[in-house]
């Protein structure tokens, strides 16, 4: 098997560009993404998914500190039932153990059912080097084994291949002509060929989805039935199991089983679930009982289980869903989105199981769009762990990129940061002229970055306009702190300006504390956690939490970062913890504030019935879990909301991501704009200035037929006032 994971971003980007040209892959993964979404939803019908996820997360998390104890219990039970249970510290040790067991038992031919753990240790290569003949029996694994490739998906290992490629391969294997359009017939070829392998094999190797400690039972979840044959026909069975598969009891296994197939393939249950306890009868063995060896693989897991942040990664149940929903996976496929483990969990585990050199470029390839987190059945905060893994890699390699050093220095010092932004506004003047957009980038940018126009930094930021803008509200009904964030303050102050009359009109007094600064998300994205913490604290200190009813932001990214990550970064701080949590509680986005707090009515708007598409920012729909409010608000404001394809798929901005991986960013942007255009919209509305930057820049560059604006601007334009008095603001 070959795995060539690029060790630097430049090579990685070349690979990604190459993958973007693979039309078959894109078509396949697109169809898959749509089908998966639908079948998953159907499979979970009638199930309280949130409670189920909580239950699984809690059960898995509570097992992690007890792994060694569970191992001892499992070993005692399984050995009493005739198994031999081993522990392997490293991948090499596991492979050697398995080869030794094969030798001791005079094994020549081995059959295997699918095991990601065996992929992790590159077991087949080891066994083949030692003269054993290994046949994979899962159809997809067999196909990629014949092609000498690694899996491109944890559940669907050969999803990157077309029927034509499989037919060609089978022709070589069987020497018979194959009809690529007769998939059923090709499956029969596999059935026939592999039947022989089962009958001739001396040893079967499997993985396991569960190792149930209370009874020493292995649980295997499969569809094809090969796992059953592998564990039944040969006289020897070796199971290679990660320590993380240990669960205390059957109830835990059954609870995970409730979610695993539903989340993996949209099946309510996989065709076969097999529970093996001890050495069962086996006529092929001299003793009349199976020779059963169970090998638990550590390979860093026991250390990981003790880590306060990364232990969460061991909650993974290997459903593969984090790849299924990842917009980047969908573009480039698993061979470019993992080393052995694929998808978001692969970005994290690679650093721990396969060395930082293999994780170095890969781990950077995350938009932080939160799709994986929203779909994880074990409640793993995958994007957060990925950002932590970025830092882990840097620390392990003793690196700290200059941009990180600069970012940390600048962000920590608000006055310096804002000074630099003002200087930047002057520097860009020759590029932009009088236009609000920069259409041609200076030469020091890579031409790949030219896929969108860039907005100019305002000469007069929101904070300098505030004295003039602050509405005078006598006898206010509530007080709100406006949190600008860098983009609203320095690039799009007009978005905040647009919102103010509606607020004033509803008796809302608005404060704009001058000591507020960047929310700190860019620091976290760059794995500068200390800076993120420092900046978060500056913002919390800038706001008088007791004197404000809400902390309102027009930026979904700032909002979700403050609401979710501030308590993570500072919630346990003995001095500030309580205030940080109170701050986070009060954070609210613009749409929710207008719909749920002010309860704006359609009477206050002049309906224009303009056909309006909506882009759901990642950090709004998944980060803050605000889904209906913006769409309702559009309707309330008299706009004709037209749904478009993949509304909640990332626009490709991802902050600095779009600079790091411009080709991916550009492709996601193009798809988004195509979807809006085919929906026939005249306007595209979103509620995050970062998305506005990306979408407006792309729409301008590609001369699209619709305009892009922030929802505050769209709503303000339609606003006619609550009372006559309010009209003066228009």
């Amino acid at each position, binding site marked *: 098997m070959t795995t060539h994971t690029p060790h630097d971003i430049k090579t990685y980007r070349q690979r990604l560009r190459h993958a973007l040209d693979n039309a078959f892959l894109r078509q*396949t993964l697109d*169809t*898959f993404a749509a*089908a998966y979404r639908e079948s998953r939803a159907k499979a979970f019908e009638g199930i309280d998914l949130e409670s189920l996820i909580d239950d699984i997360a809690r059960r898995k998390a509570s097992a992690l500190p007890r792994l060694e104890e569970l191992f001892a219990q499992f070993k005692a*039970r399984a050995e009493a*039932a*005739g198994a031999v249970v081993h522990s392997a510290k490293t991948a090499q040790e596991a492979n050697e153990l398995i080869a030794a067991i094969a030798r001791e038992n005079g094994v020549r031919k081995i059959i295997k059912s699918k095991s990601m753990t065996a992929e992790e240790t590159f077991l087949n290569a080891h066994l083949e080097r030692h003269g054993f003949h290994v046949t994979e029996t899962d*159809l*997809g694994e067999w*196909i990629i084994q014949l092609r000498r490739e690694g899996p491109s998906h944890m559940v*669907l*290992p*050969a*999803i990157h*291949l077309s*029927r034509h490629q*499989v037919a060609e391969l089978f022709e070589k294997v069987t020497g018979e002509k194959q009809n690529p359009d007769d*998939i*059923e017939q*090709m*499956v*029969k070829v*596999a*059935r026939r060929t592999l039947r022989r392998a089962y*009958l001739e094999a001396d040893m079967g190797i499997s993985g396991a989805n569960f190792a*149930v400690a*209370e*009874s*020493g*039972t292995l649980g295997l979840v499969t*569809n*094809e*039935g090969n796992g*059953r*044959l592998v*564990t*039944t026909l040969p006289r020897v069975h070796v199971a290679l199991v990660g320590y993380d598969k240990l669960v205390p009891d*059957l*109830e835990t296994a*059954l609870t995970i089983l*409730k979610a695993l197939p539903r989340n993996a*393939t949209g*099946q*309510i*249950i*996989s*065709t*076969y*679930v*097999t*529970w*093996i*306890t*001890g050495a*069962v*009868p*086996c*006529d*092929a063995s001299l003793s009349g009982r*199976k020779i059963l060896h169970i090998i638990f693989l550590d390979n860093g897991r026991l250390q990981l289980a003790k880590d306060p942040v990364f232990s969460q990664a061991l909650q993974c149940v290997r459903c593969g869903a984090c790849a299924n929903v990842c917009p980047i996976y969908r573009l480039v496929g698993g061979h470019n989105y993992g080393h052995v483990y694929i998808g978001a969990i692969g970005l994290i585990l690679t650093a721990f199981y396969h060395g930082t050199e293999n994780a170095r470029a890969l781990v950077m390839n995350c938009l932080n769009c939160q799709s994986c987190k929203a779909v994880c059945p074990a409640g793993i905060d995958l994007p957060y762990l990925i950002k932590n893994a970025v830092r882990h890699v840097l620390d392990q390699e003793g690196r700290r990129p200059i941009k990180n050093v600069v970012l940390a220095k600048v962000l920590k010092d608000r006055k310096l940061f804002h000074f630099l932004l003002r200087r930047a506004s002057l520097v860009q003047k020759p590029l932009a002229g009088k236009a609000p957009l920069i259409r041609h980038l200076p030469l020091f940018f890579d031409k790949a970055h030219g896929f969108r126009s860039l907005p100019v930094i305002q000469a007069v930021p929101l904070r300098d306009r505030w004295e003039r803008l602050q509405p005078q509200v006598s006898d206010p009904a509530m007080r709100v702190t406006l949190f600008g964030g860098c983009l609203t303050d320095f690039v799009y102050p007009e978005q905040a300006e647009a919102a103010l009359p509606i607020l004033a009109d509803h008796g809302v007094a608005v404060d704009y504390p001058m000591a507020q600064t960047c929310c700190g998300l860019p620091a976290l994205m760059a794995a500068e956690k200390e800076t993120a913490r420092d900046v978060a604290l500056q913002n919390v200190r800038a706001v008088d939490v007791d004197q404000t009813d809400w902390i309102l932001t027009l930026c979904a990214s700032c909002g979700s970062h403050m609401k979710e990550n501030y308590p993570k970064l500072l919630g346990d701080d003995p001095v500030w913890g309580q205030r940080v949590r109170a701050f986070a509680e009060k954070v609210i986005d613009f749409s929710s504030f207008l719909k749920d707090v002010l309860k704006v009515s359609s009477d206050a708007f002049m309906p224009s019935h303009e056909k309006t598409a909506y882009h759901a920012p990642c950090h709004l729909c998944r980060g803050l879990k605000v889904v209906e409010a913006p769409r309702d608000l559009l309707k309330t404001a008299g706009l004709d909301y037209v749904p478009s394809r993949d509304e909640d798929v990332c626009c490709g901005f991802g902050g600095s991501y779009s600079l790091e991986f411009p080709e991916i960013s550009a492709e996601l942007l193009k798809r988004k704009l195509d979807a809006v255009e085919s929906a026939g919209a005249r306007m595209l509305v979103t509620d995050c200035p970062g998305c506005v930057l990306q979408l407006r820049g792309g729409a301008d560059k590609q001369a699209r037929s619709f305009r892009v604006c922030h929802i505050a601007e769209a709503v303000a334009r339609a606003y006619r006032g609550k009372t006559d008095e309010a009209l003066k603001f228009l």
Partner: protein
Amino acid sequence: MNDQDLVELMSGKAQAVQTVVRLCAHWDEVVTYTLDLTASQGGSSVAPWGLPDQARDRLIQGAAHKGLRVLDPPFRRHLEQIHTALTPVDWGVAETGTLVLDSTSEDLRLATMLSETHVAVLPKERLRRSSFDVAEAMKAWHMDPPRYVAFISGASRTADIERVLTIGVHGPQHLHLLILKEADA
């Protein structure tokens, strides 16, 4: 949920994964069904396991009449000859259409894995709603090892070539569930 609802739920969920479901009044009907099915598929043999004596006798008589072979254990001797496996089921899990078989006997395993068609017989009173309702029974098995317990939900399947669902890759290509109204009849 009453018995009738459970049977309906089981039938619906099992059919959704291509299991053919029939209600049978008694074992005679099971035997006739199995022989007819085997003959109609062009099969030449039936491997029965765990049948009540009387049903087994009927099967042997009926098979002789139709010119079919009834295979005797150990099935290791017949690895490539098993067309139909006829076995009882320990539990049925209605909400997923799942059959639960204590498959510790190697003969039972070989029959249910290597056959082209598996005819599984579930006494109605062994039907439960969820897997959690059979957890206690499963635990009792696991605590009395060695054990090999199988959940079977439908015929063997794969979607590994272009995600096209294809039935019968390694295990049986057909799964027939016969729900038996009167287990002792």
